[in-house]
C-alpha cells in the first residue's frame, strides 16, 4: 500500500514540478547583467564526467543538465527528465525526457545521448568518480527517442536521487563516440549557459544560452568566474564590490563579511564533516573498546568551536547530520575520561597507548582537529603524535592505507550514498575496514525498502550501530558559509554544497553596470 503511495508521490512530484518555473514568472526577476563570482581554487577540470571539486561542479552545472536535480530539502525535481516510474520491485526505472531540448550546438537531445552518457560514466576506462555513485545500473536502453529504461542490478529506491550526481551531466552521444577528451577544454551541453572563454587560472566566462529549455531562464546575460586563492583578499574584494557572489568562505571572514555594508552573509547547516578514521582490522583499533575509549574523550561541542569556529553542529560518530533526510537524533556523547581509561585498560593498555595520527594540510581544519583530539585524548592515556603532510603525499601514502588519520567529506545526496561511500564492506572508499556484516545487511535492506517508516527505522538502526561501535570518530559537521552583494537575487546556499542554481539568480536594484 505505502509503497504504491511513495511511487505515485515520486511521479506526481515530477509532473507537478515541471510546471513550477513558469508559474514563478509571476514575480519576474530582472533579466540581463553580468555576475562576477569568486572561487577559492581554479576549476581546472570542466570535463563533466571527471570534475572533482566544487568550482568544477559549478562550471559543469552551468553548462550541462542532469536527468534530475536535487532541491535544497534534498528531494529531487525534474531536469532533462520530465517524469519517471519504477516497476513494482524497483529494479526497472523508466524516465521520460523533456521534448524539444537542444545541445549548445543545436542538435536535439534524445534517449541515445542519455544511454551513451551513462555507459561512458560506467566504463572504468573513463575513470569517472560517478561510476560508483549513479546507482546500481546494470543496463540502460533507449525505448524510444524520449524514453530511457534503466535496469538495475538490484532493487534501489534512490535512483532518481543518484542521477542528480555531479558527474552525471548528459553529454551528446556523438561527442562520446568521437573525442570524449575534447570536453576537457570545450563544452556542448544543454545547460542554461554556454562556455564563452576558458582560462582556468584567470577567468572563466559563460554566456546565456538563448535556447535553454525554460524560455524564462537564465536571467543573467553572463557570469564571470575569478580565482581568489587568499580568503582574506577574496572577502576584501567582496566588501569593495569587485565581486558579487563568493562561493565559499571561512568563519573568520564570514564575521567580517556579515558586518560589511551592502553584503549579505549566507549560512546553511550541512553534512560536510571531518572524521578520524580508525583501521578496524588492525591493532589497536580492531578492539572496539579502544575505539569507544577514543570516542569518549572527544568533547563534541568544543570541537565545533575548534574546527568550525562555532559554525557547525556536533557529530555523534555517524555520518548523518540533521541536514540529511533520515537523521536520527541520538543523545550526544559527553566526554567521560574515567570510562575511557577503564575501556583502554580492559583492552590491554593500562598504561596508555602511543599513536601517530596523520592529518593532511588541505583543508587546514584537518590539522586543527588532529591537534584538538591530541589534547583532549591525553587525559585518558592516549599519547598522540600528530603528523601533518602535503595533501598529494597523503593521498599517495596514507589515504585508504593508514589506520589512524583525519578524513574530510562532502555531504552526499542520500543516507545510502554516504554509507555506501564510506562504511559498508563494499564501500567505494572502505577506509575503516569495519566490515560489519550486520550493518551491511541493514543498509542493503534500507536501500530496497519503499515503506518510509520501515526505512526510517532501518537507517535509525544503522546510526545506532555506528554510534555504538565507532568505526570512525565524527565529532563535528560544518555549516556552509558564503556571501553575496545584497543586490543579487534568487541565490540560496544548498546544503549539499555542490549545487548552485545560478540559473535562478538575477541582479536587482543597485547592481553595478558591467560591460
Amino acid at each position, binding site marked *: 500500500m505505502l509503497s504504491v503511495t511513495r511511487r505515485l508521490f515520486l511521479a506526481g512530484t515530477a509532473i507537478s514540478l515541471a510546471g513550477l518555473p513558469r508559474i514563478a514568472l509571476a514575480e519576474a526577476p530582472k533579466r540581463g547583467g553580468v555576475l562576477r563570482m569568486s572561487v577559492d581554487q581554479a576549476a581546472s*577540470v570542466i570535463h563533466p564526467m571527471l570534475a572533482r571539486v566544487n568550482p568544477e561542479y559549478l562550471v559543469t552545472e552551468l553548462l550541462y543538465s542532469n536527468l534530475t536535480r536535487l532541491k535544497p530539502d534534498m528531494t529531487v525535481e525534474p531536469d532533462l527528465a520530465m517524469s519517471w516510474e519504477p516497476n513494482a520491485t524497483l529494479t526497472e526505472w523508466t524516465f521520460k525526457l523533456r521534448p524539444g531540448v537542444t545541445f549548445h550546438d543545436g542538435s536535439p537531445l534524445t534517449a541515445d545521448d542519455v544511454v551513451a552518457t551513462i555507459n561512458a560514466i560506467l566504463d*572504468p576506462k573513463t575513470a569517472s568518480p560517478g*561510476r560508483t555513485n549513479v546507482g546500481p545500473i546494470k543496463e540502460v536502453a533507449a525505448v524510444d527517442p524520449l524514453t530511457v529504461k534503466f535496469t538495475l542490478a538490484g532493487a534501489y529506491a534512490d535512483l532518481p536521487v543518484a542521477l542528480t550526481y555531479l558527474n552525471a551531466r548528459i553529454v551528446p552521444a556523438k561527442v562520446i563516440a568521437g573525442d570524449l577528451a575534447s570536453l576537457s577544454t570545450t563544452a556542448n551541453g544543454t545547460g542554461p549557459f554556454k562556455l564563452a572563454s576558458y582560462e582556468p587560472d584567470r577567468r572563466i566566462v559563460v554566456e546565456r544560452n538563448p535556447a535553454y529549455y525554460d524560455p524564462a531562464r537564465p536571467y543573467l546575460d553572463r557570469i564571470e568566474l575569478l580565482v581568489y586563492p587568499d580568503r582574506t*583578499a*577574496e572577502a576584501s574584494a567582496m566588501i569593495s564590490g569587485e565581486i558579487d557572489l563568493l562561493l565559499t568562505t571561512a568563519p573568520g571572514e564570514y564575521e567580517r563579511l556579515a558586518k560589511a555594508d551592502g553584503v549579505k552573509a549566507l549560512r546553511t547547516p550541512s553534512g560536510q564533516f571531518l572524521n578520524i578514521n580508525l583501521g578496524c582490522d588492525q591493532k589497536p583499533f580492531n578492539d572496539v573498546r579502544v575505539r569507544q575509549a577514543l570516542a569518549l574523550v572527544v568533547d563534541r561541542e568544543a570541537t565545533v568551536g575548534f574546527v568550525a569556529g562555532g559554525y557547525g553542529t556536533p557529530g555523534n560518530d555517524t555520518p548523518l547530520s540533521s541536514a540529511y533526510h533520515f537523521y536520527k537524533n541520538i543523545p550526544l556523547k559527553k566526554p567521560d575520561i574515567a570510562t575511557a581509561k577503564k575501556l583502554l585498560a580492559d583492552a590491554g593498555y593500562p598504561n596508555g597507548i602511543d599513536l601517530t595520527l596523520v592529518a593532511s594540510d588541505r583543508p587546514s581544519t584537518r590539522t586543527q582537529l588532529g591537534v584538538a583530539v591530541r589534547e583532549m585524548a591525553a587525559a585518558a592515556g592516549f599519547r598522540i603524535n600528530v603528523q601533518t603532510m602535503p595533501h*598529494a603525499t597523503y593521498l599517495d601514502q596514507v589515504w585508504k592505507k593508514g589506520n589512524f588519520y583525519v578524513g574530510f567529506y562532502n555531504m552526499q545526496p542520500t543516507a545510502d550514498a554516504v554509507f555506501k561511500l564510506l562504511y559498508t564492506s563494499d564501500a567505494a572508499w572502505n577506509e575503516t575496514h569495519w566490515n560489519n556484516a550486520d550493518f551491511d545487511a541493514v543498509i542493503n535492506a534500507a536501500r530496497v525498502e519503499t515503506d518510509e517508516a520501515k526505512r526510517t527505522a532501518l537507517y535509525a538502526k544503522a546510526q545506532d550501530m555506528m554510534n555504538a561501535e565507532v568505526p570512525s570518530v565524527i565529532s563535528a559537521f560544518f555549516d556552509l558559509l558564503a556571501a553575496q552583494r545584497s543586490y543579487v537575487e534568487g541565490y540560496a546556499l544548498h546544503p549539499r554544497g555542490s549545487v548552485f542554481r545560478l540559473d535562478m539568480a538575477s541582479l536587482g536594484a543597485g547592481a553595478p553596470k558591467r560591460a
Partner: protein
Amino acid sequence: MSLAWFARRLMLMVYTVIVVSMLVFAITQILPADAAQSLLGENATPEVLAALRTRLGLGDPAWLQYGRWARHVFTGDFGISMRTSLPVGPEMLAALSRSLLLAVSAILVTLAIAVPLGVVAALRQGRLTDTGVSLIAYLGVSLPEFVTATLLALLLADTWHWLPATGYVSPLEDFGDGIRHLALPVLTVSLILVAHVMRMMRSETLDVLKSDYIRAARLKGLPERTVVFRHALRNALLPVVTIIALDVGYLLGGIIVIEEIFAIPGIGRALMVAITTRDLPSIQAGALIMAATYAVTNTLADMAYAFLDPRIRYD
C-alpha cells in the same frame, strides 16, 4: 665588448638553462607522490592508474623521459597540462607575461623612488633626512610581503576606496582598470625593493663623492648640482644594475605571496599550483621558463655593466 666575450656569456647562459632543466627534471622524479595518483585524486582505480602511467610514460627510465621531454621543449612544445588539459607552454608564457608586467612596473617605480632618495640621503649624510629615509626604507624591507600587502589593501582599498583590493585585469583589455588593479601589488613590491636599491645608491654615492675626480670637479668650481648629477650619479648607478638583475630573480620566484594575495594569475602562482597538484609538465615548464628568464636578465645585466664600465671586460 669583444665578440668572444659576448659569445662566452651567451654560452654560459645556455649551459645554465640546460643544467637547470636537468635538475628540475631530476627533482620531479623524486617528488614524494605519484603523478598519476595525484592527477586522478581520490577516485582512481588501480587499472586506470596503470593505464595513465603508461600513457604518461611514467614507467620509462628517467633519462629516456628526459630525452623525450628535452626534444619536445627544443621545438617549443612543453606538453599538455595534466591538470587542465591545455597546452603548458602558452599557459606558462601568459602567466610569465603577467608576472613580468608586475616585475617591470615595480622596478620602474622602485628606481623612481629609490635613486633620488638614495642620493638625497647621501648628500644629507647623518642628518635627519638621512635617518628618516633609511628608517622608512628599512621598515619596508623588514615587513613581510603579506603584512605590507594586507596593510596597504586595508588602507587604500577597504578604508579609503581609492583602489580595487585585489584581482587582475589585463591592461590590454581595459587599460585604466588594468593599471588600477596593478597599483597595489606594484606598490607592495616596490616598498620592499626600495630599501635594497636606496641603500646601495646611498653608499655608492657616498663613495663616489669622496673620490678624487669629484674633488677635482669641485675644485674646478663646478656647481654642486653638476657635480652630483653629471659626474657622481653615473658611476654610482652602476652597482644598482646588478641589484636590479638580482631582484628580478626574487621578483619572479618570491612574488608568489603577492600573486596569491592579490589574485594575480602569474608564474609564481602557476608554479605553486603545478607543484601541489604534481602537474609534471607544468612544473618542468614553469621552472625552466623562470630559470631562463633569470639567466637572460643576468646576462643582460652583465652586458649593460660591461657597456657602462669598460673595466669589466676582463679578457
